[in-house]
């Protein structure tokens, strides 16, 4: 039981990371209709900025600031220079351009920060673990990650449901042309959304940097899962991104924890090893297929 709880927490932590990355991606995809493969790069930029700020100042606050500023600024620049010209192009052009940008960013980061992965320590106030229940110690850093994900979810909900900008975002997701026709500066809205997405990635980067390897290409690897999340959740909807993140995060964590366990009881050992590891790798894609079978537009699609 304790083991199950711990695995649920692990799943929540992964969900939190996925949510931070997918919230921006789903808005950019849903509202601006841009497939943005560069999204993962903002996560990498955030992590590298955080690691180098932490290395030179030793302060987590500075790392946080550097990650947010670095990722948001880079997002803004990318939007102004490249993405802006892609809104009306078809998806193939967008994929090509943003894939190119991903490669460019990887090289840029290599030039600026070098090839060796930098180190970032867990800040002292988040290090160690805490006893949640007798016999269940859980690292504070991971709890903080879950908390950060929940706070961002709350903040985004307030932003989108309670503010004028949020109203425009929702309207833009439903019918962008109509919003444009009503005299709203949709260009500015797009820039804002794109930068916000990059900022959230930067936040994910600084939170992940103490736990994960800060390395070139770290964004691309998680980007595919992030796309799975927004497809499962429903493109263009932050609530969908939250639901998708939770489903994918939990499926991945619990699948990794329990599929090998059950398979070893069902199958002879020489088969169960390879069968379970294949099933573990495929679990989130199987989930996606099932969801799309019953809800082709995802769990919580943006209303249209």
């Amino acid at each position: 039981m304790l083991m199950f709880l711990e695995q649920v927490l692990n799943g929540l932590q992964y969900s939190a990371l996925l949510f931070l990355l997918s919230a921006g991606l789903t808005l950019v995809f849903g509202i601006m209709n841009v497939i943005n493969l560069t999204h993962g790069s903002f996560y990498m930029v955030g992590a590298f900025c955080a690691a180098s700020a932490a290395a030179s100042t030793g302060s987590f606050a500075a790392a946080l600031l550097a990650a947010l500023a670095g990722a948001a600024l880079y997002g803004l620049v990318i939007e102004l220079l490249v993405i802006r010209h892609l809104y009306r192009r078809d998806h193939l052009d967008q994929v090509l351009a943003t894939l190119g940008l991903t490669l460019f960013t990887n090289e840029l980061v290599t030039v600026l920060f070098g090839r060796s992965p930098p180190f970032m320590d867990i800040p002292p106030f988040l290090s160690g673990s805490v006893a949640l229940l007798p016999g269940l110690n859980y690292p504070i850093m991971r709890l903080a990650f879950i908390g950060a994900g929940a706070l961002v979810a709350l903040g985004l909900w307030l932003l989108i449901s309670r503010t004028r900008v949020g109203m425009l975002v929702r309207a833009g997701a439903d019918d962008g042309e109509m919003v444009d026709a009503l005299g709203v500066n949709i260009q500015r809205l797009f820039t804002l959304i794109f930068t916000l997405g990059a900022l959230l990635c930067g936040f994910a980067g600084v939170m992940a940097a103490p736990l994960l390897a800060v390395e070139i290409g770290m964004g691309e690897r998680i980007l595919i899962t992030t796309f799975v999340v927004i497809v499962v959740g429903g493109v263009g909807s932050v609530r969908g991104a939250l639901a998708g993140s939770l489903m994918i995060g939990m499926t991945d964590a619990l699948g990794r924890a329990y599929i090998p366990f059950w398979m070893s009881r069902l199958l002879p050992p020489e088969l169960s090893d390879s069968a379970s590891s294949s099933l573990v790798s495929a679990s989130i894609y199987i989930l996606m297929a099932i969801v799309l079978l019953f809800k082709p537009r995802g769990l919580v699609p943006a209303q249209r």
Partner: protein
Amino acid sequence: MHKSTLRGAAAVLLSLASYAASAQQKPVDIGFIGTLSTPAGYIGEDERDAFMLAVKEGGGKLGGVPVNVRVEDDALKPANAKQIADKMVQGGVRLFTGINFSNVMAAVGPTVLNAGAFYVSLNAGPSNYAGKACNPNYFSVAFQNDSYADTAGMAANELGAKRVVIMAPNYQAGRDAVAGFKRTYKGEIADEIYTKLEQADFSVELARIRSLNPDAIFQFHPGGAGINLTKQFANSGLADKIKMITPIYSMDDRMLAATGTAGKGFYLSSLWSADLDNAQSKHFVEAFTKAYNRAPTAYAAQAYDTANLIGSALKAVDGDIAGKPDDFRNALRRADFPSVRGKFKFGPNQHPVQDWYLLHIEAGPDGKLVYKNLKVLARDHTDVHAVDCKM
């Protein structure tokens, strides 16, 4: 008087002639196909830099023969590497090295060897080239892939680990590492956990390990995945109770630097460490650190040895690989070069017969983590595939 003038003129002519000959000696092309981009790029960078250090020390020559090292990036894509090799073979390159990854090696091997060219491996050591598919023109200077894992099994025995959890990524090299470890480890295996290649989060696996409560973990996760695992292992609080045993390639110098103090206490199997007590190793560590302002990895040490081995063989044939392939091969087999490993020789399958060491990561005098060479794990260690090699 007259005679000596003649003699002097002859001497001048002779020296002119020999000067002309050396000026005409075309540098020997060496195809260096390495992984210089992707997250693993730091490995290729270290290998290239160490190889070029040897060339630089010879003043653009290896073994006194001018060389032209053609460095190309394979981007860790076997198809890329094969294309590069095809082009180089057609361009007349007769000698290749540089490949780090066994899957890339598998793609390039046939191209190079079918053309009758030589391949001298500075890292990749897939089992087929040590056994059934062994080839007179294929030499491995680093190791056969099983060696770092079966010596880790010996390390687990040595450390008195009774119950071990094995953890490796679910791909060929990961499964090979597991097989290698199991071949020598004598205790109980509590569980085998297969992870995804390039996995970022290991919390689920670490929770499972906590419930299994083994004496030690053997894991093989080079690069980013290994950094993730190390950081999270330290953060999980398991490091106090459970020993971590891994090949040096899952905790190289760059990974050590990227994990802060998380790698402290790790036990490693390795064929080389910077504190080895031999002149060549000391010279190499000093020269590399001076030239590149960073400490060399074991990858770099292997590459440096590879360059010097190639130098010894080039010297034997005066750079004429195409004209005297048999002499060149025999010279490679003799392995008559100063090795950073102290002593070095090839087994019958042209893979190394060498000592493996148990290293321990501890805080050095200045507080920084260093590899401490504890003892020899295996003397004159070879591989099990040699028996299948008919040459």
